[in-house]
């Protein structure tokens, strides 16, 4: 049964399929906003198949084992995170006290592998991309964590399943977390390296950032990891900020899909209406606006927790 969870549902196959579909959805919305036609539904899959069939070039003078292992680690970490997030009911597949921290760390691993991939590539542009990856990590990670932990404070639990259960019984308190939701949506945009925070792989500046030297199947796995990360991040936001579950697991699952669609739609709007900002502007923005907002949310939640008899 574990193997079924791991490989089929909600693991690798389901996540890959949903990830590819979400990439299509994101690209289609982006294209429609730009008054273009956009890709057909199978385009992300076709891209992956094409990449896999292409020649894989590993640069001379790199650690070849690491070069090959990094994409797999990124994909595995992003996939593992889904098991602790409630999807079809307010109970996740696995849960224990403190799993929200594990999920956050699992979501950090892909970013670290991007950094290592750039560092290991021994290429100028990849190196600059890697440094930018880390700098960006330090700016969005703190607001994201604080934003996600604020609801946990209110629920007085560090377990995603318990947080979901708490908000299912107190649905009005969801509204209280809206500022944190906004912070997290913006920070996730940075985590997923999308406009306006696509600084680490800014095409016109540093070619493809960390992935400059990646090609063929390793690049395909990185692409899959990015898609998976997109879905997992959206799932996490949905579970923490929009914990709407019904008794029927199937209907709950459909609601979950709708939530993911809405979140990715918001992310796509963000992507299409802004220009890419500079690294130092992003750091400034995250620390000057996002982090204090998230901190304020935490303080408010703690105060409310003291006032309300929960």
């Amino acid at each position: 049964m574990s193997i079924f969870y791991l490989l089929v549902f909600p693991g690798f196959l389901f996540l890959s399929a949903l990830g590819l579909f979400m990439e299509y959805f994101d690209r289609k919305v982006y294209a429609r906003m730009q008054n273009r036609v956009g890709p057909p539904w199978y385009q992300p899959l076709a891209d992956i198949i094409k990449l896999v069939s292409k020649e894989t070039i590993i640069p001379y003078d790199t650690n070849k084992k690491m070069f090959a292992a990094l994409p797999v680690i990124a994909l595995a970490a992003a996939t593992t995170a889904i098991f602790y997030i409630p999807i079809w009911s307010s109970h996740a597949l696995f849960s224990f006290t403190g799993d929200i921290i594990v999920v956050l760390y699992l979501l950090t691993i892909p970013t670290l592998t991007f950094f290592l991939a750039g560092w290991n590539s021994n290429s100028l542009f990849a190196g600059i991309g890697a440094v930018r990856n880390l700098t960006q990590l330090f700016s969005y990670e703190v607001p994201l964590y604080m934003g996600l932990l604020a609801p946990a404070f209110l629920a007085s639990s560090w377990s995603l399943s318990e947080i979901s259960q708490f908000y299912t019984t107190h649905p009005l308190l969801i509204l209280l977390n809206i500022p944190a939701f906004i912070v997290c949506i913006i920070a996730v945009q940075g985590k997923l390296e999308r406009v306006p925070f696509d600084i680490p792989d800014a095409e016109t500046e540093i070619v493809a950032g960390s992935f400059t030297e990646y090609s063929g199947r390793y690049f395909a796995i990185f692409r899959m990891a990015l898609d998976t990360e997109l879905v997992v991040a959206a799932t996490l936001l949905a579970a923490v900020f929009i914990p709407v579950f019904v008794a029927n697991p199937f209907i709950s699952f459909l609601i979950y899909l709708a939530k993911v669609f809405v979140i990715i739609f918001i992310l796509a709007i963000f992507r299409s209406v802004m220009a890419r900002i500079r690294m130092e502007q992003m750091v400034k923005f995250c620390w000057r606006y996002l982090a204090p907002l998230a901190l304020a949310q935490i303080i408010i939640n703690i105060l409310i927790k003291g006032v309300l008899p929960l």
Partner: protein
Amino acid sequence: MGRVVVPIGTQHPALKEPASFILTLEGEKVVSAKAKLGYNHRGIEKACENRSYIQSLYIVERVCGICSHAHSTVYCEAVEELAGIEIPKRAKYLRTVVCELERLHSHLLWLGVAAHEIGFDTFFMYVWRDREKVMDILENFCGNRVNYGINTLGGVRRDLTPEIIEDIKNLCKLMDERLKIYTDLAMGDATLAARLAKVGRLSKETAIQYGAVGPVARASGVAIDVRVNDPFAAYDEVKANIVVDDNCDVFGRVLVRVLEMVDSVRMLRFMMDNIPDGTISVKVPRKIPAGEVAHRVEAPRGEDAYFLASNGTEKPERIRMRAPTEANWHAIAHMLEGDYLADSPIIIAAIDPCYSCTDRAIQINDLNTGKQDILNWQQLKQYSINWHRENNGIDFAKLKIK
């Protein structure tokens, strides 16, 4: 932090044509920049010398894909001046109409490229979608989308039909509406302003010192515009406004170009109502009298200057083209220094560079001896072999180049 040398180019996603920029970085800041040209030399000037005046016209038109009409206008007017021919007024107006349509589509193209360089692809798509409308009119009127082929020696080749006048009037209406959106966006979008303001600074004094022209100079507060300073075609009657901005940065260059488009629309509308009747061309002899002439026009990118020498035969003796990019080129290194690496694509793009227009034959000026020399192919080859042997330690002499 150590210094890193980053090569932007010869092949780089930010560059639409090959050119090389060697940036020395300290962290993300550019401490010194070196701009190199010479990857796109096509021998166009020499090719013109081997062809008749009318054949050269089509080569001159292909110096630049985007400002092709400016190049052919300056060439035609120079030849007409040599031949002592006054072209009909309607022809002058028609040239001006295409000039302004070209400015419209060139600035729209630039706006799109600039938006793409800073990752604002939605803006890029909108601008290029609207540019298609201008291109369609140019195609219907002139016969082609970029190398219009509307100019001929002694006038223009096609006349405006009532339908095209109607089309242009509709275009003006559409552009009014769209340009309002773009002006609002350029002035009011926070992310655009964050990326463009205080980037690629070029003060008024430095702009004059480096000899910047066109929108780059105008965005630094230098009020130069050939259309006003030295009117060509029908610009003595169709008055252009000089759009000057004193932001002295990339943001100012965006504003200048957007407001120039508004001005172009105004002029187009004026010309559609006031175009004089008459013939559209006069005959020009195949042999042009001997003489020399220097002429300039305002291309969308700035002043486009030509020198033409004739020896009384069917073929020009010498054509020297100075495309606007060549004048703006020298300021690039100055603008890049002190800014972030992330800004370098937009700074380079902000002069609206056209490298193949700029690449010309070289004359060697030895700074130490003051000697001037023109090298032939064999000497140039030998020079490069020596240079690489001395500077890079590579010996190309063993290589057989045919």
